[in-house]
């Protein structure tokens, strides 16, 4: 249980200056190490004394992890420690991948976006209040989901993919990266690998204690965005209890190419409804060749919520998700 607030337990703070050093430190300390990026998720855990790593590896002093670079294939590579403000205001992202800038701009508040990083935003833990409160739930290694009890407060929890745990992924940038077909570049002591954004996030059926494929020793170093969807027609919308400084109840991102008045290609993803951001491939397939209008949006919305299993207090998310998907297809302004 979290008993002491605002006083962090002791840990060794390591501040590598290069990616290689960071990877070596993570390999050396394995499960005892915690990667500190912007600190917005991490410091809550430490101050609440729920997570007590022996070693904290602060990667904020590694210049290689920062900045937005063009790649040889015409895409972009965003360092994992690039702040959300930089992502939201970078000219290349605004011009070619606006959905990501829109998503980054919707994260929390300006102060948090100045400190928070794109790597931290996609790798943050769930906001389930039972889990964050320090209960030994499934996600914390126990045998119980306290949000899934008959009286459990599960208004923010999942509609899909409940597998013992019903928590959801809280990232705003995650669905945007999925629709851009981004690839997450991960380094560890054995080398570097690229994981599609869609596969970077995992549900409880894969590992109930993690939200991403990152294992002890792994470091997310950058996010590569191919030119495939550059300049597409984008849409991002987030619904939260407050317009600022809040996590999404549901958000949606889409990228589509429209030619001759019909959808030629589309990628569509939602978050806040499952333990991992969901790419709606069935919906994508059903709307290709259709005009991006009200009727197609309605069909897409109906398809999107097929199979939703609301909990006691989150039935409202079903029409919310349906309408967000509908707006992503037809455009919100009409």
């Amino acid at each position, binding site marked *: *249980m979290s008993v002491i607030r605002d006083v962090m337990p002791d840990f060794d703070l390591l501040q590598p200056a290069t990616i290689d050093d960071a990877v070596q430190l993570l390999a050396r300390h394995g499960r005892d190490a915690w990667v500190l990026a912007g600190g917005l998720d991490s410091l809550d855990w430490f101050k609440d004394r729920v997570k007590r790593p022996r070693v904290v590896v602060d990667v904020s002093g590694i210049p290689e992890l920062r900045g937005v670079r063009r790649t040889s294939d015409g895409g972009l590579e965003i360092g994992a420690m690039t702040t959300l403000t930089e992502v939201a205001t970078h000219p290349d992202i605004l011009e070619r991948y606006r959905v990501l800038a829109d998503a980054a701009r919707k994260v929390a508040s300006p102060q948090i976006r100045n400190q928070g990083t794109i790597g931290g935003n996609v790798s943050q833990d769930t906001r389930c209040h039972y889990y964050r409160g320090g*209960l*030994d739930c499934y996600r*914390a*290694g*126990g*045998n*119980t*989901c*306290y949000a*899934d*009890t*008959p009286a459990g407060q599960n208004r923010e929890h999942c509609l899909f993919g*409940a*597998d*013992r745990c019903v928590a959801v992924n809280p990232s705003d940038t995650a669905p945007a990266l999925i629709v851009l077909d981004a690839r997450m570049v991960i380094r560890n002591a054995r080398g570097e690998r690229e994981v599609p954004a869609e596969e970077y996030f*995992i*549900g*409880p*059926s*894969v*590992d109930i204690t993690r939200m991403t*494929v990152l*294992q002890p020793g792994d470091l997310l170093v950058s996010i590569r965005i191919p030119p495939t969807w550059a300049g597409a027609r984008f849409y991002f919308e987030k619904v939260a209890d407050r317009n600022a400084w809040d996590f999404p109840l549901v958000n949606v991102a889409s990228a589509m190419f429209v030619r001759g008045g019909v959808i030629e290609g589309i990628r569509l993803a939602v978050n806040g409804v499952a333990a991992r951001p969901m790419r709606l491939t069935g919906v994508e397939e059903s709307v290709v060749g259709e005009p991006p209008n009200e009727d197609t949006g309605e069909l897409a919305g109906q398809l999107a919520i097929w199979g939703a*299993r609301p909990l006691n207090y989150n039935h409202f998310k079903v029409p919310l998700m349906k309408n967000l998907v509908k707006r992503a297809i037809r455009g919100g302004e009409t």
Partner: protein
Amino acid sequence: MEILRWERNPWGQQVVAGLGWDMLYVAAAAGLVFVVADALYRWRRPTRINGEEDLARLMAAEAARGVPERVVRHPLASRIFHWAMAATMFALLVTAFLPILGVQFSWVTAHWSAGLVLTGLVLFHIVHSAFMGLRTMWITRRDIQDAYNSVRRLLGKEAPVPGKPGKYPLENKLFHHATSLFGLGVIGTGLLMMVRVDTPFWVRNPYLLPDATWGVIYVIHGASAVAFVTMIMAHIYFAARPEKRWITWSMIRGWISRAHYLAHHDPELWRVVPDGRRAAGRRSESPVSRGGQAEAQR
């Protein structure tokens, strides 16, 4: 080393959450130690047939009494059961332990699906065995006496030469009973745990039992599962040993030779139907053992 995992419930009570996964490594180490120790022992003391006899004389006598060239040890249904269970156990161990070792994949549905297959196989085996004769697997007083004598002789003490077993030697019976025990452990608790996940058959109900009771169930499930790691290591080791391969082959082909039958089994305890009494047709080529009846008659 973590033997048990503990959790604190919302009322501040410390309750058991399950078996500590360090025990998986303990089970694997125990299996390895057993295999190495047995291999060293057998290397230093080559296997001898209990009560070595003049096999040629015995074979001539038994052939005259109609013991067939091929003695059926495992009928087709038993072999199908064995290999289906082996595949299912492999699937269960892979889906259970690889995620613990850090290999990430969606394991839950595959795990309970394999568990249901295992449950079905065990039910089939129970029914089939009831028809085939359960007594072949019973541990008899003679098994215990022979084991006692073997241990005394192993320790260099005076003891009568142990006799040959019936259809199944004591170690087979013990392995079978341990498998039954741990199998019931994983199946019984596994079926209960399925209540906690959504399946096509029902919606999850995690609140069937209190936290602490679930913890005990998880411990039984985990302990039985890691016990299988040790047992399967030993089982595969014996199946691969050169002097045991005739048994392994019998689980593939179904039969053992007359020579192996006479060398390793007591024809009085495991009687086979003589060639001459076989009915005509296909069945006459693969005589059926009647070990169950023979042991029942003892």
